[in-house]
């Protein structure tokens, strides 16, 4: 096969908005035909800006972009008619049916009447949406919406397909389907740019452009990136109390990074570093590096293991009291059952995860347990307090961190801290000590007067955590706490959580993020409103292990368990 053509050439691309720091700084790279190029980076790294520059919707402040041989500054129209672009939220008309949406986009893209029937048929078959042609787009699941979006972007077969985070809000199964479809397209020579914040997706790409804070950290095949940390990644097993062990290990000289993976710890060592000393009985073995290891290495390694916030907190009594109890929790909205008969108990000092795709019912369950939703039946208890009777008392004992940044954006850091201190009844000296401590620990002083909405993403996340921890809660509710943040911020976040858990804080976390699930002691897998599996991450992985998949990942486990549940449902229906 001949060398694939460069469909997009970026040379020193810079984009500046107003007075803000540049959204893109001197980015160079290529997108080739017949390949999937991953545009990888955390939220706010500049992915969407770069894609919009490629479409010619915006002009770069500096540098040049050549797309399909046209300069985006002068030939935007020529580019736009030859590419397919799927923005983050594809502009589907929710009140039109699948078929009507496609007809509308066919009109907009000027697809000749004569070709329509054949093209629609091919695309609907390809995306497996044929059965739903008459269904309104608003009633499709997240995954199906993305497939329909893809179908609309493919109406006039483009030479270049730009996909802005197609995997967001889509469960792993649909994401795998979507990926397979896109791979099919590359076989026809189409060049695909797949933007994503999921680092594990980067590994599957043919090449990667890694962005962080507007800078391209790497451009090339992902194996080249992971190759840089080859032989430096280890897996430590049998280490006992893994959270404390991790906190010590990452502070050892020569350890660049460490994360929890179920019962084990994953370590990244500095180049030429000796293996760190391990307690007796611990086994250490080299393991295959992942893209994230290389990314963290490139960023200079993960944070240390000392959490000042946990250190400043008194330990809660070391008992096995159930701090969070769900007892037959059920929530119906009309005839739709969002959560059915969900029961579990979380003892003190445990991290419990609710894992599941969007819309599966994990948020509903979560909301019932922190008092945001009243269950249709069943009871929820926090710190032994019945939420249906004494909700306010229970709420005084819990800290809550919402999925998207949900502090007061117009208020400064200090005003936000003061507000949360006040709302949790802190006053006088205690209020001053706690807010002062938060400012110091999270390094807020430099930004203290700035409106919170203007803070960088990582700092916003810290502020949200500070607000949730203001009153030293016994129970923490975290709703998708680190989706989209960079790996360093995520490690820092979990470092604090791990240390707090060691002090006896109990954590309930929802996530659709497999990495995050690994931090949990136990997980309940929520699917279609039911808990389909409950166990530690390692137990769940072991459950689906098979001869062809001896060492499944969390995502493999998730996919297998969901398919199993689907099969059971079909059996019941039959």
């Amino acid at each position: 096969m001949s060398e694939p053509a460069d469909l997009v050439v970026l040379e020193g691309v810079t984009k500046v908005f107003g007075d803000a720091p540049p959204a893109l700084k001197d980015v160079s790279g290529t997108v080739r035909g017949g390949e999937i190029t991953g545009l990888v980076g955390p939220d706010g790294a500049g992915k969407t800006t770069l894609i919009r520059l490629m479409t010619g919707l915006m002009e770069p402040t500096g540098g040049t972009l050549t797309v399909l041989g046209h300069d985006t500054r002068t030939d935007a129209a020529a580019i736009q008619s030859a590419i397919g672009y799927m923005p983050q939220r594809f502009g589907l008309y929710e009140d039109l049916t699948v078929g009507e949406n496609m007809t509308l986009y066919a009109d907009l893209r000027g697809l000749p009447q004569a070709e329509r029937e054949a093209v629609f048929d091919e695309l609907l078959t390809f995306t497996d949406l044929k059965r739903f042609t008459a269904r309104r787009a608003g009633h499709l699941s997240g995954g199906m919406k993305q497939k329909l979006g893809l179908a609309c972007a493919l109406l006039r077969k483009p030479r270049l397909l730009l996909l802005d985070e197609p995997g967001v809000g889509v469960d792993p199964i649909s994401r795998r389907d979507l990926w397979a479809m896109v791979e099919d397209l590359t076989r026809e020579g189409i060049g695909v740019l797949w933007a994503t914040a999921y680092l594990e997706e980067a590994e599957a790409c043919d090449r990667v452009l890694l962005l962080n804070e507007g800078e391209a950290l790497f451009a090339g095949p992902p194996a080249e990136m992971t190759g840089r940390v080859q032989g430096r990644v280890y897996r430590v097993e049998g280490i006992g109390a893994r959270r404390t062990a991790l906190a010590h290990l990452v502070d050892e000289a020569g350890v660049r990074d460490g994360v929890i993976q179920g019962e084990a710890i994953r370590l990244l060592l500095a180049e030429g570093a000796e293996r760190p000393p391990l307690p007796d009985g611990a086994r250490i073995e080299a393991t295959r590096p992942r893209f994230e290891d290389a990314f963290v290495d490139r960023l200079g390694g993960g944070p240390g293991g000392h959490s000042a916030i946990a250190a400043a907190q008194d330990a809660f009594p070391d008992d096995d009291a159930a701090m969070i109890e769900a007892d037959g929790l059920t929530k119906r909205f009309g005839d739709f059952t969002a959560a059915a008969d969900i029961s579990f108990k979380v003892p003190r000092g445990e991290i419990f995860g609710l894992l599941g795709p969007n819309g599966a019912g994990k948020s509903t369950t979560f909301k019932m347990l922190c008092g945001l939703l009243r269950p249709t039946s069943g009871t929820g208890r926090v710190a032994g307090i019945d939420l249906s009777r004494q909700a306010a008392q229970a709420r005084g004992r819990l800290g809550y961190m919402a999925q998207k940044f949900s502090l007061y954006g117009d208020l400064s850091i200090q005003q936000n801290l003061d507000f949360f201190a006040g709302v949790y009844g802190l006053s006088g000296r205690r209020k001053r000590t706690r807010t002062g401590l938060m400012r110091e620990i999270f390094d807020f002083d430099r930004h203290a007067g700035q409106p919170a909405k203007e803070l960088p993403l990582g700092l916003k996340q810290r502020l949200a955590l500070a607000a949730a921890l203001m009153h030293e809660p016994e129970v923490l509710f975290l709703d998708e706490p680190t989706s989209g943040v960079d790996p360093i911020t995520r490690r820092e976040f979990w470092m604090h959580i791990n240390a707090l858990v060691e002090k006896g804080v109990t954590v309930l976390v929802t996530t659709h993020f497999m990495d995050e699930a690994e931090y949990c002691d136990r997980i309940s897998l929520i699917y279609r409103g039911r808990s389909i599996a409950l166990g530690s991450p390692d137990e769940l992985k072991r459950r689906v292990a098979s001869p062809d998949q001896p060492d499944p990942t969390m995502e493999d486990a998730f996919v297998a368990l969901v398919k199993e549940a689907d099969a059971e449902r079909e059996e019941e229906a039959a």
Partner: protein
Amino acid sequence: MSLTRLLALILKELLAVMRDPKGRIVLIAPPVMQLLIFSTAATLEVRNVDVMVLDQDHGHWSEELTARIAGAPTVKRVLPADSPDMLRRAIEERSVIAGVWIGSDFTRRVTAGRPATVQVILDGRRSNASQILASYLGEIATRLSLETPLGTQITGQLITVEPRNWFNANLADKWFMVPNLIASIALLVGLIVTALSIARERELGTFDQLMVSPLRVHEILIGKVVPPMIIGLGHITLFILAALLIFHVPLRGSLGLLYGSAVFYLAAVVGIGLFISALSMTQQQAILGAFLFLVPAMLLSGFATPVENIPSWLQPLCDINPLRYFLVVVRGVFLKDIGVDEVIRQTIPIALIAAVALTAAAWLFRRRME
């Protein structure tokens, strides 16, 4: 109830409005605009109108009448018409608001001491201005008729009217308008600030954050009610100052009574705003909801047209409009020394409206939590 929690909430609410650029606009732009527009441009008086005269008489008395119409301060120009047709067209095209048709025997009849008639044709599409103009023209005609031969004979026996305008001797428009604005601006700002407050938090996702805090529902409600009331009292104070210092409206009654009544009035306005806010999911819905209430509330308040003129089937709506009662209080305090009993009589319905609105808002707020 914890004072610490409540204070934190109130302070946050005030800061959120002040620090949000859009919030600041809501606080500043409508008051300034209302002050400018209503106090200078929008006037209920009829001034600078053009009148057309079709004089088929061309006698002494018809010319005298035309001259007096032209001399009236209300009338800018008197345009002569050649034919009834021209008069009809001028009114149709709105180039004049009224036409005066003087028949060919006018002077003859007047000189002969017989009753004479002048026809006035008015543009009924502009009913208010027409009504006022008709009475002006009537007055001119009456005065003229006293000087006619017949008129001079009966002057001695005639009853004449000598009007005296109490409370606003010169019928100064601003004296009437500016106190009205005090009531209406508090309605506008109080309603919008409250309506946006919950909807904004819902949109930003901070609402859940509030709901998982140990704040109880009634604390959240108080925290949402107090700040807009503070802001509303601030606006009322500013407008009172503007009325006294810029527009020199006399203050004849007690400000204490005005503020006392204003607290209930603001509670009613904020209660309605909170109800709208609890009902809406987005800020856009909240704004639409606020205006859906605001426009009829203004029209059915006696702000521009007397409540008595509003058709009886709409009267029940006027009865539940807090602006209607508060307008009486504001005007009363400014233009006449309104008595305590009258203020209380007007404030009781306001307090009732406030109680119902706040209860309904709290009920809806709890219900929407499900």
